[in-house]
Every structure is written in structure tokens, then in C-alpha cells.
């Protein structure tokens, strides 16, 4: 007969250790089973000397084991000591092969054939044994690894780290820490921001990037790993660098097969789904409990608290509340209706569509970051033009979006369970409309970072947000007559695609009939005239393209390709056709639009012979502008060098309108055919500068301008992130003497930006620098000073779609 225990704990990480210590403390018979020959393998495998963090800081630790932030060695030492001190029954070198039986009588079989029996099983095996693998092709001979034990082992290597989570960032910092090792380290992150990493890590990484010790590639994925080199897809196309070793740290997925074999069910088919758990961590299999990273909780403090709590639950303590209970209690205190924290969490989760896939544990973590509020009927959630990038989820009641700024009675309702404010989340723009509660409602406000984390951790939530955003975009596009039900089929068939810069979604001559909506980025439309592609038009985000084929069943008449990395919604042409057939009004409108478009096409066709020179010029200038980032601009300064006399009055005017510092460099920048794109902000659709601003000081204003507010801390992240070099880090000079006193008495430096030395003499040594960039002269009557101050009309500010319009062709020919 095998040994019998009340509790068997599989895995000796922070969660398992804490559970075992609690069991030992309570005098419950237990066994702690560990696969390797040491405790806590995941932390054991951390880099030597790694600083182990203790986040979230607001959470209290409730465990018989001590833990505080410190070096890996100290943390492990403490645990080893206390495990012995608590008389924990540990069984090392024991890999569990199978778990059979039911609650009260489980039989655990080890790899060596031995067995033990237990009444309850706690699975605390984490997810590290199951890392996410690289998905791009890997050549034979290329070195790809998923762990890094000792960064000191590698010298003189070109190392690429894939993954901008904590593990990847810490590996990169470790490899680049000692310049003597002479490693050249590159860190690759799929998104533009490091949403899942701890703030301190991100800061350290950016500092290292700034110092040139690590090169950081964001919005980049590996497309091919060869021997000695790696190829990436970046925002601006493909790039290849030298690479001797790839360390992939792209997270890990639960070891699903084993957990399912134990009888526990998962929340969905997704690779990153977690087991379904009760609030007492019990899985769908009675007697099997799941805690720690495997339960969806990767942070050490949470793991340890769960270890403590689960043993208390098993031991019959039903009144125990989780350690974060007081924090959540405070959040729910002011809501109507007397519900317990658990009831509130369950209520929010089940009422809000995007929160539904979350486990109760994830809900707890999520609500620690988010706020929930009750709104009376008519109370405002947010006002038009408020700055704000949070997402609101409606848990009960409903809200009204005031679509017309002048007439608050024109509203669109959004029902319970849905979300509102997603535009702010995506673009960081100010609120586009005022939203008020239609009835007494309860809404969850999800801050931007929490929303990004939610999307990256819970894929179904990301899909739900995407679906709602798609649905709204399509509804707005097709006009007000349609309802959600009308386009349900289209939304179902819609597919979000990421298009690389330069890639075509529609090729001239193709017979496809699908319709594309540009979600982010922008596209250019080209037509082959003779043997040269002629630029037809520019499509900013929010446009749609490709419906002519649906109506006429004709082959595509032009090519549409991405100007920059873009996202499109592909709408099935047949579904769209069905919609048109059901809605004669929409069909008629579409027809008349298409006719107008055909006229433009015919016009360009006709021009190609008589005015081919003009068409050529237009086409090549357009291509030049798109190459220079106009494709993602919303407003750009263009200088006609046929007119520019080089007086720099634009720079002087800019400086004099903004605390004495110019936000543009007229002379720098690219020029084509005397059309000059100076170094000045383009107010990108998805501003790169916004990607990583610690105080969240960069916003988009009412007129579309991207501006930096007073909360700037001068970290310089935005300057580094801007691909166009338009942000300066400067000390703000004191006010100058007035123009008249300069004119008559020569006091002060005169109009324009003062000399650097003049500023240095007048500001304190330790004055912090601030990020300075164009704000399109927001709030200054008369508009951009650079344009107003140009004596010859050389400077204009334009939206690219206006400047790149085919109508220019007609105008220029008079």
C-alpha cells in the first residue's frame, strides 16, 4: 500500500511551497512533489543575481513563507531554509506521470513507477515547462533557445531576444550588462509598447536602448531565422540583421494535456486558455485544485497567497477572504445593491461581453487596476473633447452617445454588456462625443494599460473588442439606416488582416470581389498606365475600397497597396452583395458613388496621353511623399522651394509662438522636385511618440494635433520613438524682452529662438529638459504660425488626402 496523504501538492514554486508550508503549519498530512532536484525550478532558472520583484505593491503577502524583492539567491535561500524549518514533506526528483481516481482517493504515479495516494491534489506546476515556440521558419544550424541561465556565458555574440515581456527584457539587460562581454543585443517586440512588462523593467530597457547598449525593435516580428542572421518584418518593411543566437521569450502556455488528463477542463480551445476554476481554486474535477501561473496568475505574491488560501479552503476554512479583498471591497463600496466582492466580480464578468472569458482570479487582478462606478440617469461618463484613453464597459443599464456636438438630443444607444470609448483606446484621440447614462447604470472604467493587458492576456476579449470596433466602423460607414442585425452576417465574415508596407490588397486585373476597410495605416491606389504605375489616390484610415467589383462583377481596375504597415477589415463580397440586395437605398447610393469614381478613372485614362507629363509629375511626387511618412500623417508642413527664400521666418514665428523654442527645422528633411518636407511633426494617425510615455503626457487634441502636456517628465522616450526626428529635448528659456525694446534699444536676442548660450546663461543648471514638438498652434487664433509667417506662400500645412487628391491634376491644368 502506497503512502497516503490528505493533500498532494504538485510543483514546488512559490505557490506550491506556500501551500505546503501552510499545510505543515496546520499539521495536515501532505507531500510536496518536485520534478527536479531543487525547489522552485522557475526561479532557480532565473539569471544569476537577478533581482526578483515583488509586484503588485499594493497587495499584502499572506503566506508562511517570507518573500520580498531581492536577489534570486537570497529569495531561494530564504525558501530553502523556511521549508526545512516548517518541516515540509518534500519529494524531489519525482515527475508525476499520471493522476487517477476521484476526490478523497487519488492515486499519483511517478515516472519511476512508484505511487502515492492523496485525498486532494493541488496543481502548482506553472507554465514554464511549455514555452511558446517561434512560428517563423528556422534554418538548420540556427541557434534558438527558450531559456537563459547565465548571461555571463556568452561573449562576442550577436544575440536577438524575441519578446518584450519581463523575461525577454531581463535577458536582454543581463546580456548587455557587461560591456566586456561585447555582445550586441537586439530586443524584438511585436507591439509598439511593452504592455505586459513591469514598469521598472521597461524603464531600464529604454535607458539601455538610449545608451546604445541594446537595440530595440518594436512593431516587429521575426519572419525567418537563418544561420548567422535573422529577418524581421517591421513597420516599414523587411530588414535583416546579423544574429548568432535567438532567445525566444514569448511567454508560455499551460501544460494543457497533463492538466486535462487530471480531469480539469479549460475555459476554451485557445492555446493560452486557463483551467476553469471556482473561487476556491477547485477545478471542474472535484478534489483537484489549480493555483499559481497555471491558474492565470504569474506574479509571485499572488502565487504565494493562493498557496496559503487553497490549503485553508481544503482544510474547511470557508470564511477566508482573499488577501486583496479589502482593496476590492473599497472599490465596490459605493455601488448600489448589497453584493459581496465575489458576487460583484461574477456580476461584472457575466454582464460584460469582453470580460466573460476571464477566470474569477483574472477578474480579481483586472479589477485591482480598473474602477467601477454607478451613474444616475443623465449623468456623464465623459465629455466630448475630454482627454482620455480608457475604455468603458457597461455592466448594467445603458448609455447614450451624443453624435452631434450641437444637438445633444441626437443620440445613439449602446446597450448593457457592450463597451464604449474604444476609439480613444486605439488612437489616444480626445473623446469624439459625449456619453451619458441613459438610465441608472454601472460601468467599469478600464485604463489604457489595463485594457492592453486584458487584450494580450485574454485573446477572446481582444477578439470581442475587435468585433465591436469593426461592427461600429461598418455601421458608420454604411450610413445611419442600417442596424446591427443587418450587418451581422458581414461582421461574422469580416477578417482583420495586417498588411506590410508595400504589400497589395487588391491587384489590378484580379477578379476578387471582397471589400476592404482600412482600420489603421493608409493605402495608395495605383493604376498601370503604359508600363508605369500612376498614383491615383491616397486612402487614409477609415476609408473603404473595392466595392466596384461587388456591383459590376468586373475585374479590379487598379492596385491598392499599403503605404505603411496597416490593418484592414476584409469584408466578404458575397455577404456585402446580399446586404445591398436587401437594402435598395444603400444600393442606389453605392451605384451613384461608383459612377462618380468611374468618371475619375476615365479622366485619368484620358489624361495619360494629353497630359502625361503632368500625370507623371503628380505620380512621382505622390510616391515621394508617401515614402517620407506622409502615409501615416494627418497634417504635414510642406514647403515649395520654388517660393522659399530661406528667411527662416517660419522657424522664428514658431519659436515666438511657443516659449521661444522652434518646433521645426526648415532646412532639414527630404526634397523632391523642389517640394520639401521639413523636419516637423506630421501628427501621425497612430503616433509613435505616444507609444511609451510614462506620465501619459502625449494626447491628440480637438483639431487632430498631437501635443505634449505639462506633465512631461523629460524622459526622452517620445524623442527616441519618433521615426521622423521631430521632437527636441530642451530647457525652456525665460521670456524675452518685448519686440519693441529689441527694435529700439537692442535688448534681448530678438525674434526667433535665442542662441543656445543665451538660454544656458539664464536657466538653472539643473532645469529639467522637456520634450518639445509641434502642436499645430492649437489655441492660437489664426492657426499655425509657420504658415501665417511665411512671406512668400512657400509653407502650407495640409492633410495628405487633400494634397494627394486627383483633383490637383485638374486644377493644375486649369
Amino acid at each position, binding site marked *: 500500500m502506497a503512502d497516503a496523504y490528505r493533500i498532494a501538492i504538485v510543483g514546488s514554486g512559490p505557490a506550491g511551497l506556500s501551500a505546503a508550508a501552510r499545510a505543515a503549519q496546520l499539521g495536515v498530512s501532505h507531500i510536496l512533489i518536485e520534478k527536479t532536484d531543487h525547489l522552485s525550478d522557475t526561479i532557480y532558472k532565473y539569471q544569476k543575481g537577478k533581482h526578483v520583484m515583488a509586484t503588485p505593491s499594493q497587495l499584502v503577502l499572506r503566506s508562511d513563507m517570507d518573500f520580498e524583492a531581492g536577489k534570486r539567491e537570497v529569495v531561494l535561500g530564504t525558501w530553502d531554509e523556511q521549508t526545512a524549518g516548517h518541516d515540509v514533506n518534500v519529494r524531489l526528483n519525482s515527475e508525476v506521470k499520471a493522476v487517477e481516481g476521484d476526490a478523497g482517493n487519488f492515486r499519483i504515479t511517478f515516472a519511476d513507477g512508484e505511487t502515492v495516494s492523496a485525498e486532494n491534489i493541488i496543481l502548482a506546476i506553472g507554465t514554464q515547462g511549455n514555452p511558446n515556440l517561434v512560428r517563423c521558419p528556422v534554418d538548420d544550424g540556427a541557434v534558438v533557445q527558450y531559456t537563459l541561465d547565465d548571461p555571463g556565458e556568452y561573449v562576442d555574440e550577436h544575440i536577438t531576444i524575441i519578446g518584450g515581456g519581463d523575461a525577454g527584457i531581463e535577458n536582454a539587460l543581463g546580456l548587455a550588462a557587461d560591456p566586456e562581454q561585447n555582445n550586441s543585443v537586439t530586443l524584438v517586440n511585436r507591439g509598439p509598447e511593452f504592455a505586459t512588462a513591469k514598469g521598472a523593467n521597461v524603464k531600464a530597457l529604454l535607458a539601455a536602448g538610449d545608451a546604445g547598449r541594446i537595440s530595440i525593435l518594436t512593431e516587429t516580428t521575426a519572419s525567418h531565422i537563418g544561420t548567422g542572421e535573422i529577418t524581421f518584418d517591421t513597420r516599414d518593411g523587411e530588414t535583416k540583421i546579423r544574429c548568432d543566437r535567438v532567445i525566444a521569450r514569448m511567454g508560455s502556455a499551460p501544460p494543457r494535456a497533463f492538466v486535462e488528463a487530471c480531469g480539469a477542463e479549460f475555459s476554451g480551445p485557445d492555446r493560452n486558455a486557463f483551467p476553469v476554476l471556482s473561487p476556491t481554486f477547485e477545478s471542474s474535477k472535484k478534489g483537484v485544485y489549480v493555483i499559481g501561473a497555471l491558474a492565470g496568475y504569474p506574479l509571485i505574491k499572488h502565487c504565494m497567497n493562493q498557496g496559503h488560501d487553497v490549503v485553508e479552503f481544503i482544510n474547511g476554512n470557508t470564511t477566508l477572504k482573499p488577501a486583496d479583498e479589502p482593496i476590492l471591497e473599497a472599490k465596490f463600496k459605493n455601488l448600489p445593491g448589497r453584493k459581496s466582492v465575489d458576487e460583484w466580480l461574477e456580476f461584472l464578468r457575466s454582464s460584460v461581453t469582453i470580460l466573460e472569458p476571464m477566470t474569477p482570479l483574472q477578474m480579481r487582478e483586472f479589477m485591482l487596476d480598473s474602477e467601477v462606478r454607478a451613474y444616475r440617469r443623465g449623468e456623464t461618463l465623459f465629455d466630448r473633447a475630454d482627454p482620455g484613453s480608457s475604455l468603458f464597459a457597461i455592466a448594467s443599464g445603458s448609455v447614450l452617445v451624443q453624435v452631434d456636438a450641437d444637438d445633444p438630443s441626437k443620440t445613439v444607444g449602446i446597450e448593457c454588456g457592450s463597451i464604449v470609448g474604444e476609439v480613444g483606446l486605439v488612437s489616444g484621440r480626445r473623446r469624439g462625443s459625449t456619453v451619458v447614462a441613459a438610465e441608472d447604470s454601472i460601468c467599469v472604467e478600464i485604463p489604457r494599460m489595463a485594457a492592453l493587458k486584458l487584450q494580450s492576456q485574454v485573446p477572446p476579449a481582444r477578439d470581442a473588442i475587435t468585433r465591436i470596433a469593426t461592427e461600429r466602423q461598418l455601421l458608420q460607414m454604411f450610413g445611419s439606416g442600417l442596424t446591427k442585425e443587418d450587418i451581422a452576417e458581414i461582421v461574422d465574415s469580416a477578417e482583420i488582416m495586417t498588411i506590410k508596407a508595400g504589400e497589395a490588397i487588391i491587384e489590378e486585373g484580379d477578379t476578387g470581389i471582397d471589400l476592404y476597410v482600412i482600420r489603421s495605416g493608409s493605402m495608395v491606389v495605383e493604376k498601370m498606365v503604359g508600363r508605369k504605375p500612376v498614383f491615383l489616390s491616397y486612402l487614409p484610415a477609415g476609408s473603404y475600397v473595392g466595392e*466596384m467589383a461587388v456591383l459590376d462583377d468586373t475585374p*479590379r481596375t487598379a492596385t491598392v497597396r499599403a503605404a505603411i504597415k496597416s490593418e484592414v477589415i476584409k469584408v466578404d463580397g458575397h455577404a456585402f452583395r446580399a446586404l445591398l440586395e436587401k437594402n435598395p437605398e444603400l444600393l442606389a*447610393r453605392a451605384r451613384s458613388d461608383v459612377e462618380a469614381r468611374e468618371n475619375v478613372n476615365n479622366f485619368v485614362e484620358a489624361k495619360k496621353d494629353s497630359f502625361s507629363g503632368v500625370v507623371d509629375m503628380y505620380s512621382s511626387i505622390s510616391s515621394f511623399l508617401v515614402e517620407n511618412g506622409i502615409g501615416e500623417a494627418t497634417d504635414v508642413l510642406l514647403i515649395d522651394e520654388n517660393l522659399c527664400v530661406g*528667411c527662416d521666418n517660419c522657424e522664428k514665428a514658431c519659436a515666438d509662438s511657443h516659449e521661444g523654442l522652434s518646433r521645426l527645422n526648415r532646412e532639414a528633411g527630404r*526634397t523632391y522636385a523642389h517640394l520639401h518636407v521639413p523636419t516637423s511633426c506630421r501628427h501621425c494617425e497612430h503616433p509613435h511618440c505616444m507609444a511609451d510615455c510614462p506620465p501619459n503626457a502625449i494626447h491628440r487634441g480637438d483639431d487632430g494635433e498631437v501635443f505634449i502636456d505639462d506633465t512631461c517628465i523629460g524622459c526622452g522616450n517620445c524623442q527616441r520613438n519618433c521615426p521622423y526626428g521631430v521632437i527636441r529635448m530642451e530647457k525652456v528659456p525665460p521670456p524675452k524682452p518685448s519686440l519693441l525694446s529689441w527694435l529700439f534699444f537692442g535688448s534681448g536676442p530678438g525674434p526667433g529662438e535665442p542662441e543656445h548660450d543665451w538660454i544656458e546663461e539664464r536657466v538653472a543648471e539643473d532645469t529639467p529638459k522637456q520634450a518639445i514638438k509641434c502642436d499645430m498652434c492649437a489655441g492660437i487664433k489664426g492657426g499655425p504660425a509657420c504658415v501665417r509667417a511665411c512671406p512668400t506662400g512657400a509653407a502650407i500645412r495640409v492633410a495628405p488626402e*487633400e494634397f494627394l487628391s486627383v*483633383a490637383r491634376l485638374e486644377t493644375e491644368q486649369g
Partner: protein
Amino acid sequence: MATRRADVGTDLAETDEVERSTVSTGARHEGVWRYRGSYWGKMALGISVTLIIAYVLIDVEPRHNGGSWLGYTLGTAGGGLILWLTMLGVRKRAMTPGRWSLKGWTSAHVYLGLSLVVIGTLHTGFQLGWNVHTLAWVLMMIVIVTGIFGITVYGILPRQLSSNRDETTEAQMLETVTDIDRQLFDTAQPLDADGAAVIQEAIDETPFDGGIGQRLSGKYRGGGTARGLADFRARSSHGDRSLDELYDRLEALLARKQAALSRIRRHLRIKALLQIWLYIHVPMTFALLAALSAHIVSVFFYW
């Protein structure tokens, strides 16, 4: 192939941009001369023609002069206009908020300034002589003529400035010269004293050498770099291959310096031409204001 900008939240039919057959003026480069369809040009022409006709038709006894009612009217208008034209200098430097455009001001300044030829001259009644009154008229004409020079270079030179610059900035051009100088210095180390002196002379030549005449005409003959280039082209080592290579390198560097020098000199020359007239235009304006004051005061006290 249908393409359309569909503004989020608005109706398709209303946001059809490509279809428009005109581009808003804000989206086009409209030069100062064509501003508002040359509104101020037409205005100035109208004023001039009207005044000339009036001058011919109106019979002033004994003859046209500044003291007649017409003369006073013209003089007052002219004086006021001169004061207003002077204000462009303030307007240009005072970045006050508001819906003004310096381009509009400049356009009006140019055209109305030209009409001053008619207004001022008719005011004199062609009674010119050696006195403070004619001095004011002469100064005014000098200001206008320099202004015409300004218009001319503003019309011609920007294109040349842009082509010569070719995406480099002035600072970059200067840096290039400094950079070549450093390379010349390093490369010339193995040379004998004679050769080193030639290179030193080339290094000593800066883009700013030469007087104002050379700066404006762009004619630089026989600078240190040109002489050095000629010298090293002529040099041929006698069978000494290592020296051959050195001479080739120096020759290439000297040629690059020559090219860099001529580019930045051309740049500076064009910029100088775009500005030099202001050094007459503006001081003469102040002289004109002084003479004008004397003219007005003397007229009222001593006429």
C-alpha cells in the same frame, strides 16, 4: 475600382473627396504674387491708372504742384502709404495671434509699394530740384528700385538655392568642409615640407574667404585649394609607388574640398543675393522717413 474617403460617422455621399474638381486653396502652394488672384496687383494698377487719368484731366492753376488740393491729397496718401509699408518690418517680427497672413501683407506691400512710383511722382508735379523735397522723392525711388531687385531675386533664386542645397543643410555643408580638412591634414602627414605647405594652404582656405565682391559674384580664382589641386595633379612621383598612391588620395580629397567649397559658396552667394538688397532697402526707408519729416515740416513752416 472605387475609392473613397469615408469619414467615420458621416454619410458616404457627403464625404466624397476625390470627386471634387477643385482643391481648397489651403491645400495648394499659392505664391505671394498670385495671392488672392493678384488682388493687390489689380488694386495697385487701378489706383495708378485712375490717378494718372485724374492728373491729366484735372486742371490745376498755374501748374501741377505738391501744394494744390490734388497735390496735398496725393502727398497725404503717399505719406500714409509709406508709413504703412514700413510696418511690414514690424508685422514680420511680431507673431501676434490672429487671422493675418504675412503672405497677404507682402503681396500688398509689393504691389502698393510699386504704385507709390505713380503716387509720389504725381505729387511732385514733376517739380524736381536740389532741395530736401526732391531728396525725399529720390530716397523713395531708391527704396522702390531696391524693392524691385528684391522681387526679382525672390522670383528667380529660390529654385537655384533648392537645387544647390540638394537636401543638405548649411550646417552640414560646413561640416563637410571641416571633415575634408581633417582628412587632408591626416593624409598629408608623410609629405615633405614643400608638399605640406601646399596642403596647409588648401586647409587654410575657408568658405568665407574673399571680399564682398567675390562673395556676390561667386568668382573665386586661384584659392589655396585650387592651387593645391593643380599642384598635386601635376606631381608625379618618379617610380615611387607609395607616393603615387598618396598623391592620388590627396588629389581626390582636394577635388572634394573644391566641390564642397563651391557648393557652400554658391549657397552663401544665393543667400547673400536674397538678402543684400534689404541692407539698402531698410536703411533707405529710415532715411526716407527722416527726409519725409523734414519735407513735411518745411512745407508747413516755410512754404
